[in-house]
């Protein structure tokens, strides 16, 4: 018996990295998972698609910056599974984002980070809202980052989008509470994913100021997402949970 038996969960950016870990973590607890991704044609995505389908899930190609595309994503999920219980807004402009200083980041890269990370989360929440409202229940889990909770260097576009996610979370918690929709954020620290390796050398990351003494693994983030998607968190909304081994506190 899983903690998410019979529930339907959409994960954006679901075909790789953390998103993929969320998909399989949610499926393991019994959820029917909608793996939504911008690119489903890579070898990794094709394999992930095959694996999630084998667990009763489905895939949807989505551009979270496009309103029509997000609406279609929600429609396809409901057509196949009849409802939407959880949305994990995981899609972000992170892979290959680089670690440039604020005056070296291009205007295009600023727009891209904010479009995917902030506007994308807003649009996906809008897309699933009618269904969650009708159900009088829903869970939205947004991905922030521990980088938004301390002085950092570089990646102002990415970090701004992750701070914006906290704002989106709080307003949605306020606006959607009356429909029994809970909206929370998880904020991972530096996590060992292929995308993190495009930002820096994960193996050489200085963990001396991390109380738990190591870099995160995708599996470290899954438990919190399952918790926020489950009925165990039905009275928790508007909150941000940092998962980074105690490096930042909130």
């Amino acid at each position: 018996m899983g903690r998410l038996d019979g529930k339907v969960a959409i994960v954006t950016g679901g075909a790789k990295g953390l998103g993929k870990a969320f998909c399989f973590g949610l499926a393991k607890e019994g959820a029917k998972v909608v793996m939504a991704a911008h690119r489903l044609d890579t070898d990794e995505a094709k394999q992930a698609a095959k694996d999630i389908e084998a667990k009763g899930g489905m895939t949807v190609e989505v551009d979270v910056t496009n309103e029509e595309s997000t609406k279609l994503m929600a429609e396809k999920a409901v057509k196949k599974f009849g409802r939407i219980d959880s949305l994990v807004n995981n899609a972000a402009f992170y892979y290959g984002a680089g670690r440039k200083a604020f005056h070296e980041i291009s205007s295009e890269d600023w727009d891209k980070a904010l479009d995917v990370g902030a506007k994308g989360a807003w649009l996906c929440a809008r897309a699933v809202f009618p269904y969650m409202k009708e159900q009088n229940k829903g869970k939205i889990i947004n991905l922030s980052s521990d980088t938004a909770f301390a002085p950092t260097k570089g990646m102002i576009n990415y970090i701004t989008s992750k701070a914006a996610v906290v704002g989106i979370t709080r307003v949605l918690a306020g606006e959607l509470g009356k429909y029994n929709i809970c909206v929370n954020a998880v904020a991972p620290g530096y996590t060992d994913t292929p995308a993190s390796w495009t930002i820096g050398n994960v193996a050489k990351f200085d963990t001396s100021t991390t109380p738990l003494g190591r870099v995160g693994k995708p599996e470290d983030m899954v438990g919190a997402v399952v918790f926020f998607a489950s009925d165990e968190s039905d009275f928790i909304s508007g909150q941000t949970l940092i998962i980074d081994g105690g490096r930042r506190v909130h």
Partner: protein
Amino acid sequence: MGMLDNKVAIVTGGANGLGKAYCLRMAQEGANVVVADIADKEAQAVVSEIKAAGGTALAIKADVTSEEATKNMAEEAVKAFGRIDVLVNNAGFYHGMSRKPFDEISLAEWDKMMDVSAKGTWLCCRAVFPQMKKQNKGKIINVSSEACFAATKGLIHYTAAKAAVIGITRVLAGELGQYNICVNVVAPGVIDTPGTRSYINMDKMDASSVPMKRFGRPEDIVGAVVFLASDDSDFISGQTLLIDGARRVN
């Protein structure tokens, strides 16, 4: 299969209200529960309830303001169950506290509040620390309150003590991370318990400013405590999770 199978969990103030709810639920999840309380008769009743449901539990009389008593509590727990995986620092001075303006609260009541809620939390952590250190793993869950997250009136002693608990949590997360001990806080909102009813009329409370349009029940809090006690939260430390239907955000 429970989320806390074979784990040993101590809950201070476990005989009544929220503490009792934590004990019952953690036992359901497979934990061996130590119900620690100064009210030993009521603690014994909780143990009987757990045993009647097929669980394992032990009552220990403990005054958390006494170093000797907290050490004895930890020793008895280890003697009975061999280890200590979880400590829930739930004991607080709450039932019957004065809801007066700051200049009307007696010094004696201030001292009692700080002794039980702040010093008691610190002493219980000290008491279980050697065992958790030996295990190279442990989970400490402290209990704060949403009262510290907004401008409020009255209860300055309670609110100060509950804010102190957040400070204790952050320092312990920093100091104990190297031993793989995670320290986090849950901060409930207004919860319908006998303790709450001892100082306010719950039936006349206005929930219109709570996005989720109701106040909490003990069941609303237990899921987060189980999550933070479980292996699902092994990379989360130093964090504060509000559980109040989004009335405040953190």
